[in-house]
């Protein structure tokens, strides 16, 4: 459960600030060794920030992700957090599969030896005992990486204030 939480928070932290959350990095022991999701921000249809706001608003609307991430969960039991996350996880997953097509950067089996064809540091990150000169021909695949093959967000309507991630709700009795 903790790992799932960390993964979700890391994804958004990297998406929006380009950094892992400090506590996650600490929890993993070594920030540099943490797998770095290779997703780039979605192609901006209007302004770079619009796509980010839009995706965040969708994740809040369909999965209530912002509510969850901004809630102080320290006081709740694992079971309580777990039952909320189950539904949240399902919804977030649906959003990811509906609006983005994610695929591994290297489609291999983690833990096996893998050759690296094009050693672009943005695509492949070498870790461990690297040679002092040149690039290694391969190594053990630790994380397949992720890349967004396709982003299919609805068109942005600039007439509306995109900074509103979720509207306030008022129930008329």
């Amino acid at each position, binding site marked *: 459960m903790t790992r799932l939480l960390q993964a979700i928070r890391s994804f958004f932290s990297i998406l929006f600030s380009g950094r892992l959350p400090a506590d996650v990095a600490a929890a993993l022991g070594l920030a540099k060794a943490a797998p770095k999701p290779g997703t780039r921000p979605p192609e901006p249809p209007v302004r770079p920030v619009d796509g980010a706001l839009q995706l965040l608003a969708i994740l809040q*609307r369909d999965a*209530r992700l912002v*509510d*969850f991430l*901004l*809630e102080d*969960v320290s006081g*709740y039991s694992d079971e*309580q*957090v777990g*039952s*909320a996350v*189950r*539904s*949240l996880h399902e919804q977030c997953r649906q959003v990811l599969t509906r609006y983005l097509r994610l695929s591994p950067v290297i489609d291999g089996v983690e833990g096996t030896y893998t050759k690296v064809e094009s050693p672009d540091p943005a695509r492949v990150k070498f870790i461990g005992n690297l040679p002092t000169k040149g690039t290694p021909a391969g190594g053990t695949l630790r994380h397949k990486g992720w890349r967004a093959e396709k982003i299919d967000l*609805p*068109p942005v*309507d600039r*007439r*509306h204030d995109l900074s509103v991630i979720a509207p306030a709700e008022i129930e008329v009795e």
Partner: protein
Amino acid sequence: MQPTYVIGIDLGTTNCGLAFAEARVESPHQLPTVLPFAVPQLVNPGEVREEALLPSALFLPGPTDFPAGSIALPWDPEPAAVTGQLAQKRGVENTRRLVASAKSWLCHAGVDRTSPILPVGAPDGAPKISPVEASRRYLEHLRNAWNWARPDASFDAQNILVTVPASFDAVARDLTLRAAGDAGYANVVLLEEPQAAFYAWIERHPDWRDRVRVGDLILVVDIGGGTTDFTLIAVTERDGELQLERVAVGEHILLGGDNMDLALARFIEQQLSAGGRKIDSFQLHALWQNCRLAKERLLEDGNTAEEHPVTILGKGSGLVGGTIKAALRRGDIERILLDGFFPQTSSNDMPQRRRAGLQELGLPYAADAAITRHLARFLRQQASSAEHGSVRRGPSGLACPTHVLFNGGVLRAGLVRERLLSTLNVWLDGESMPAARPLEGDDLMHAVSRGAAYYGLARLGHGVRIRGGVSRTYYVGIETAMPAVPGLPAPLKALTVAPFGMEEGTELRLTGREFGLVVGEPAEFRFLTSASRKDDPAGHLLDEVGDDVEELSPMEVTLPSAGDAGEVVPVTLETVVTETGLLQLWCVARDGRRWKLEFNVRERVSP
């Protein structure tokens, strides 16, 4: 002009679907493939997406419902109403502007179906539309969506097949056609849903002639979101060729998957409230949806889990703190679903009739939730002489199917199919008849629209057609000339004007009885029907109208006055069943002049 495509439309109570096939046939052994059509619709404000089905939900937005410009469709920048998924979503939050289950209202004779009565709970001053208008909007959406997606093949140039429940009476069918006409449909033919499901099976099994034999009887059980529909199809032979005949259809039963999911949600709600947690109507709705998902998961083939969690996330911005957790257990599903809706009853157990008395003005939901009892009554219905012995019956008179074809979302669950089949087979065993076998259908969600498209091909001469004819017996009521007793209506007799099974493209004249119509004044005929009386020949007079005959909307005709107002013209009645299966009644004068009787749904309002 030869159409490019045949288009089958499933106009469902909870979902609409569309399938199509090329109308061009290269070889009689190789029919064109029937393809589903994904329906573009608003799924969120500002987001149009193609979805497999169009939810039959209509939302009549007010100024505060959606941001400006966010409900534009590719073919309509400012629609007056939202159709489909977004309507469903927003309707949960603002129920007073949501029109749902319009189709169930379309066949409800207790209300004026052409006057704006939906949404039922809408306050005075809020927009309302009629059930016919709601159906028009769904059909219109499908037409516009097709024209947008297929600009090369105009919808109006294609052959369109629209399905209706087999239990729809002549009035509801007429109103469905009227809605289609209002939506701009030019070439429409109606088809009964269970027949469409059977056509879908034929379409998937080109070798179907090897799978059934002469004398077989196929029971089609169609349990959708809102209605349950039964049909019997007999396999007969003519000139050495296998033929299919629809020999019986059931009464209209307003009972479906939605009722079952709500029963599960109510059960969980009770459990929560016993534990001190109260939920409100929004949360109940979320619970309803989650129970449906949990049920589907648990009943998936191969799932052996004992329970599935059901959670309702907290309201407000606190999510974890307010989360309510419960679990739907397999045992509870089996108890509520199977024992509540599919109990193992005997074939003599008949459904409980609705208690007389004051009823809330709403949909006439089935009083008895036990679908097995409704099935028993259906199989015990009066045998028809038109059956020509083609219906296998046991010693006690129970119709004994050899095969069962399941259709509708509820029957995707193997558990429910097995319970229905095993209950039926116990009955058959009691009649010393061999057990019925299931026919393997697939894609139970789209079978009806696919089957309708196949029927479109069959009508062009490229496939087998099920012979059916009129699915009920129809009567004209004649008030007896007895001295009036204060407080009691005059006794009614019923004259058979359309016998059960009267075939498409035929007509008959009832010369035995003349009616005197006054020129220039509307003449009204009381119109009655029975799904279970199948042996009344045309012209037969029922001296007493029993429980098995129900009254429909009256029919009306006005003879045009050409100067001689007040003149009485003697007419006889003539019944016509059109090629498209529509029942028409005509008044024919002695000199051959004819006037068509029209349904008057406005007259009949709930007492």
